[in-house]
């Protein structure tokens, strides 16, 4: 056995430097990343193929099987309307992932525009924009999202917009920090020396060097968006019932925790597992592709 492991170990080591071999060995070098990736893919698969994967219709109510504990007929039990919890969790993955991804993209787009404007404009424009962002950041994103929901009203689309808007602040801040770091780099001066117009320098040199770290941020913050949107549902001001949303399901089970704990626990577990998987995934991507963490530049 020792001989086998010795033969295996040199393979990832030289590939770990740079070159085309680096990506293939990623899964061997980062076992947790691989598990998290598989878990996330399982959620995505469940969301995409929900009608084929789910054993029941998520909104089919059954008086015969109200609050049934987990068993052979209903693997994760049923809720107070007799709806199958596993099926609702599977369909709920659609809402969680779509809301999470769309709202993060809104937040990232808004943050990119504001952060670029602040970082490039400088002077009082930057000062004013950043004071606004600072005051927004003083509030937790959930409070911000509640405020936007109060303005926009309820519904999946409103939740996406509200959560997206509430995430602009942190994105704007990191984008501005990256812009400030990039704009003093020598390659920017070299481009200026070549008399390349300012907008071309921004498009060709500033933007790519800002967008790549931003993409990493997006993967890390998807879990935050899912958490905030689930919290809105839990508070009863996000998506409306009978939508199979995890936050909503946890809220519905709240009154029965003493004698039917699976009603809240199962969607809560589904939510927690997804958030953990996404966090590990985001961290792995960041460590792998962020030149600052890789050492050198």
């Amino acid at each position, binding site marked *: 056995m020792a001989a086998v492991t010795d033969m295996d170990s040199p393979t990832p080591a030289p590939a770990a430097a740079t070159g085309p071999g680096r990506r293939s060995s990623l899964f061997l070098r980062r076992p947790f990343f691989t598990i998290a990736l598989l878990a996330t893919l399982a959620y995505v698969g469940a969301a995409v193929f929900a009608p084929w994967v789910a054993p029941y219709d998520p909104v089919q109510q059954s008086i015969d099987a109200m609050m049934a504990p987990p068993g052979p007929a209903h693997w994760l039990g049923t809720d107070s309307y007799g709806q199958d919890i596993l099926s609702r969790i599977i369909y709920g993955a659609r809402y969680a992932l779509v809301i999470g991804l769309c709202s993060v993209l809104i937040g990232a787009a808004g943050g990119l525009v504001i952060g670029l404007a602040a970082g490039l404009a400088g002077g009082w424009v930057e000062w004013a924009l950043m004071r606004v962002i600072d005051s927004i950041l003083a509030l937790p994103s959930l409070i911000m999202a509640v405020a936007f929901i109060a303005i926009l009203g309820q519904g999946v689309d409103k939740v996406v917009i509200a959560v997206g808007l509430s995430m602009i602040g942190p994105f704007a801040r990191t984008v501005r920090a990256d812009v400030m770091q990039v704009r003093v780099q020598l*390659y920017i001066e070299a481009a200026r020396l070549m008399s390349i117009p300012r907008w071309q320098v921004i498009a060709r040199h500033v933007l790519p060097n800002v967008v790549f770290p931003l993409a990493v941020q997006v993967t890390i913050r998807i879990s935050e968006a899912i958490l905030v949107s689930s919290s809105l549902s839990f508070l009863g001001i996000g998506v409306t019932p009978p939508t199979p949303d995890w936050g909503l399901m946890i809220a519905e089970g709240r009154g029965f925790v003493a004698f039917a704990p699976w009603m809240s626990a199962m969607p809560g577990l589904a939510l927690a597992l997804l958030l953990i998987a996404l966090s590990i995934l985001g961290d792995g991507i960041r460590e792998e592709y962020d030149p600052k963490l890789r050492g050198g*530049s």
Partner: protein
Amino acid sequence: MTDMAPGTAARPEQPVFELLDVEKVFQVRPPGSIFSRRTVGLPALDGVRLKVRRGASVALVGESGSGKSTLLRVLLGLDEPTNGRALYNARPIGEMRRAGPAFARDVAMVYQDARGSIDPRMNVGAAIAEPLRHFGIVPPGEIPGRIAELLDRVGLSPDTALRYVSGLSGGQVRRVAIARALASEPSVLVADEAVSGLDVSTQAQLLNLLRRLQREMGLTLLFITHDLGVASYLCEEIAIMYLGRIVETGPTDAVLAAPAHPYSAALRKAAPEFSAPITEPLPGEIPSPLNLPKGCRFAGRCPRAAADCRDVDPELRSHGAGRMVACLHPLDAP
């Protein structure tokens, strides 16, 4: 004012660069005053006179803090002189730079930090293609061929184009930076410490490359360095700077063989040689440019300082064949 192209304005006797009493003063807060808004002038360049002939190779030598970098920025049009005139083909450099891309195309720069001067998200090919495309050097279809040609000219294989600077060695990155500078087909190449921080054999290869390129392409080479050995190998002419001023210029061999300014002599002695042990360095430090002495600014460290040195600020004056020196009592007077 009709001729915009850099080449047409140049007559053979006309210098490419001409600096006439260039001053550059930075407004800084005096040391120790954190809360005050009062600023004082820091003269980084003070009465610099320099002529660079077309096709010449000039080494600009000086200690750190001597104003080399500021002079470089003035020559490239990144900083306007506070006083005096900085001319490129008899026209103010700032005006030339604002007039369009012709100046930027004709004067190319190789940075000391070659790695930092190339966008890390661009591969070598894209980095070299940028000036080719920007200045419209070749039609878009011929860009890959020209990239390979430029890489070959600096001694790199064509497949380097697909690599990123983070994966290249220090010497390779300098070569890439040189190839990128040559892409715009400049007539002037400005290199800031282009071989410092490399091991000796890599340095030698790069110096050979630069010398060959300068001769084959007829480039005007302005080489900023603190290394006299590099200066004498690469450049026919030398200009030695001290505290924001050029104290001696002339043919490199002549200046180094018999320096006329005591500061040049001290630099010459301080340069280590294989045979000789390192001699006594200069006593004292460079004085602060915020607090310049009244007479010659080198008087405080000069072993030959006489009484008048502390009162009279010496001008750059002719000193033998093609040489100029700013000293009241030059060594080896002709």
